[in-house]
């Protein structure tokens, strides 16, 4: 780019904590998402390690039954809502505007709002670990203890009188607002902020899968919001939505929860599928095999994800017709998923493969996800499911898809895009250690669970007897060793991140020879991303010499790209929500007025603040 254009005056990166709490830059918000979510991921991991320590030996007594309930509930809740979703959001934030050739998201302040609500909601739920004295509980931890699925009517006041479930249902409502706001923002960003010439079928697959994910978010989250609101009315206002004595039906909760819960599974996996659809072509130096089919499969998964929820409820006894239908739809949804897997393998076939860490993780994703997918198809069959449900077999399944799938995919994305985000390459040597430790660790931790489950060990029980079955104690010990191996792998990763700050190789604009627009700009990108908005004439702009046209001379306006100044009002508005949630939690009416006041004040200042995007 020519030197005639002076760097924009507004482009000097602001520093200091004030610039971070007022930031509306999608790249900074992406980094905030990454580190916050990674912090929650470690907390969820520590909870998992405590579960595994308890189960390492029969008759384990490390934690009490009640604390164990809190551990598995918070492990699931944290990993789903506070780790995996926001880690994906870190990449949505950082990468999507770069991939589509935009200077920011469509609504930068709404984006900041999403982050702050996520952070505060996460802190709100986790405060329950230390809130016992506030509620005269007699012990420190009053964390949610009804499972991440919170089945009614166990969650009703008469069976769970403490504040545990209140933290959960109020915290999830707060977090839902963050997800919904981000959903609207990214749908509009991807549909409306594309660079000239970037037609929908030229959109990188990661952006496509993000779009599908966000449609699932904005349609699935209202459903769980209603489920939680009804539970809130039951617990606080004496209604009987889920209480059979007054004609209510606990099954309503299960339907509403899984109507949300199954699309949620695809909300968790589709972004990772998008990531590896970027990583595999780059390191095979081949365009993605069957781009169109991969995109349509993703869209189809998004639609079909709405028609399978009752396979979580086979053991309820919905009757042969419902069971057959949901069994059929569940087997069908494996088809577009399988199509994608074959496309990824075909992308590698005959490519010039470079065995980078990112590629290792992407291939690891395929292998592990296939195992998880196969056990998933196994419990698509109701008779088999009746044997497997509520056992460790299901725990094995979800960890192969969400750990072996989503987490490995997110690590592939981290190794792939970290150079873009920080300007420095992560160490490949440490990366390989990280990869092999995590692959061995996860298979040691989760593969034995298949057998533990088939041998009849139920999940969510705080301890087990030596007499439960032959070999179960040994298999559990192996699983615990595997869990700690994963912890070691994560320490290697953290060391890699830390080391890279000072010792990482400078990345340059395009360390991998990637095909998409984010590799056309410096690493890390300037605040305005693109000095000139590129005109796109190809699906793989960097790989086709004729198709990346010469950069046009910009108009005077374009030579000084505008960067919005920050705003404090998203944070102020976001603060209103946890305050509002504290009102029912502590039965304090004035807190509701303070929270609503903050919300109101924040929204009005936000609406009338001069803010040019």
């Amino acid at each position: 780019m020519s030197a005639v254009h002076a760097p924009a005056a507004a482009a000097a990166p602001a520093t200091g904590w004030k610039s971070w709490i007022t930031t509306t830059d999608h790249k900074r918000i992406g980094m905030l998402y990454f580190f916050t979510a990674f912090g929650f991921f470690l907390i969820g991991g520590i909870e998992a390690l405590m579960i595994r320590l308890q189960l390492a030996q029969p008759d384990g007594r490390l934690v009490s039954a009640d604390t164990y309930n809190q551990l598995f509930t918070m492990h699931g809740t944290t990993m789903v809502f506070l780790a995996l979703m926001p880690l994906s959001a870190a990449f949505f934030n950082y990468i999507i505007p770069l991939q589509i050739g935009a200077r920011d998201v469509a609504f930068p302040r709404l984006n900041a709002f999403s982050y702050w609500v996520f952070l505060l909601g996460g802190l709100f739920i986790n405060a329950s670990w230390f809130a016992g004295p506030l509620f005269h509980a007699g012990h420190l931890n009053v964390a949610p203890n009804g499972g991440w699925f919170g089945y009614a009517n166990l969650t009703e006041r008469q069976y769970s009188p403490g504040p545990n479930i209140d933290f959960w249902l109020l915290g999830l409502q707060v977090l839902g607002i963050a997800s919904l706001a981000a959903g609207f923002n990214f749908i509009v960003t991807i549909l409306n902020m594309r660079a000239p010439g970037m037609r929908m079928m030229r959109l990188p697959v990661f952006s496509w899968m993000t779009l599908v994910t966000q449609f699932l978010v904005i349609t699935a989250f209202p459903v769980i919001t209603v489920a939680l609101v009804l539970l809130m009315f039951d617990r606080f206002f004496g209604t009987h939505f889920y209480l059979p004595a007054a004609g209510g039906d606990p099954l309503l909760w299960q339907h509403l929860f899984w109507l949300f819960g199954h699309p949620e599974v695809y909300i968790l996996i589709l972004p990772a599928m998008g990531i590896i659809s970027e990583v595999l072509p780059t390191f095979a130096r081949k365009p993605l095999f069957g781009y169109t089919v991969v995109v349509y499969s993703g869209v189809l998964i998004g639609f079909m994800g709405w028609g399978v929820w009752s396979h979580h409820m086979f053991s309820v006894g919905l009757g042969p017709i419902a069971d057959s239908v949901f069994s059929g739809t569940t087997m069908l949804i494996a088809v577009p998923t399988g199509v994608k897997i074959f496309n990824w393998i075909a992308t590698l076939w005959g490519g010039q493969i470079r065995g980078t860490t990112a590629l290792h993780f992407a291939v690891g994703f395929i292998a592990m996800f296939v195992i998880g997918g196969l056990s998933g198809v196994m419990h698509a069959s109701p008779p088999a499911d009746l044997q497997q449900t509520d056992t460790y077999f299901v725990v094995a399944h979800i960890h192969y898809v969400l750990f072996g799938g989503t987490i490995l995919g997110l690590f592939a994305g981290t190794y792939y895009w970290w150079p873009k985000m920080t300007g420095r390459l992560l160490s490949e040597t440490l990366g390989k250690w990280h990869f092999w430790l995590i692959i061995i660790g996860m298979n040691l931790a989760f593969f034995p669970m298949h057998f533990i489950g088939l041998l009849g060990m139920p999940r969510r029980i705080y301890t087990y007897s030596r007499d439960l079955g032959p070999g179960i104690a040994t298999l559990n010990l192996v699983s615990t060793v595997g869990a700690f191996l994963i912890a070691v792998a994560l320490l290697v990763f953290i060391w890699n991140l830390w080391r890279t700050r000072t010792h990482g190789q400078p990345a340059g604009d395009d360390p991998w020879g990637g095909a998409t627009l984010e590799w056309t700009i410096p690493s890390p990108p300037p605040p305005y991303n693109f000095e000139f908005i590129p005109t796109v004439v190809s699906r793989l702009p960097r790989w086709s010499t004729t198709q990346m046209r010469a950069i046009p001379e910009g108009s005077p306006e374009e030579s000084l790209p505008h960067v919005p100044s920050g705003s404090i009002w998203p944070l102020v508005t976001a603060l209103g929500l946890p305050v509002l949630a504290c009102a029912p939690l502590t039965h304090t009416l004035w807190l509701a007025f303070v929270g609503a006041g903050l919300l109101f004040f924040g929204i009005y200042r936000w609406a009338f603040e001069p803010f040019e995007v």
Partner: protein
Amino acid sequence: MTHAAAEHHTSMGVPSRKMAFWAFIGSECLLFGSLISTYLVYKGRSVVGPYPHEILNIPLTSFSTFDLLMSSLMMVLALAAVQRGDMKWGKIWLLSTALLGIVFLGMQTYEFTSFVREGLTLQTNLFGATFFVLTGTHGAHVTVGVIWLLTLFFRALQGKLGPEHALTVEISGLYWHFVDVVWIVIFTVVYLIQ
């Protein structure tokens, strides 16, 4: 309302704020859809009275439905006035829309209090719980809409709302019409088909 001045280049040719609002309305459909489904699932399953046919006042609710429909008409007129730059009538119609919204809320308050007097509360039975949560959620939406419309009206009084803000008025209108349509569904499902 400050970013109305220059709408940016958009790939789909639809202003971003409008597109986001349509997505929001889609999301709201699922919210009300879940609440209405809950109402339908629990219909006829209350173990004690009062039951819907004993208590629902259809003439009154027909009037508030008419009131809300008329407010949608006012909203259309408000937007048309703002779009052609006629801020005098813009203000009049915005205020009328909000006032009709307030009338609706007043009638809902009357309905709720009279139900409570007749012995139907949230806690009484499943009908009470599903009815109050569904219509209460709708009422909360109307309240937000009234505050929004009054805000626009006062901005217009201050001279800070002109034809350049037509998109802002259009989006508030989308919201208002959506809330109206939801009421038509609720009126049909809860009141007319008992």
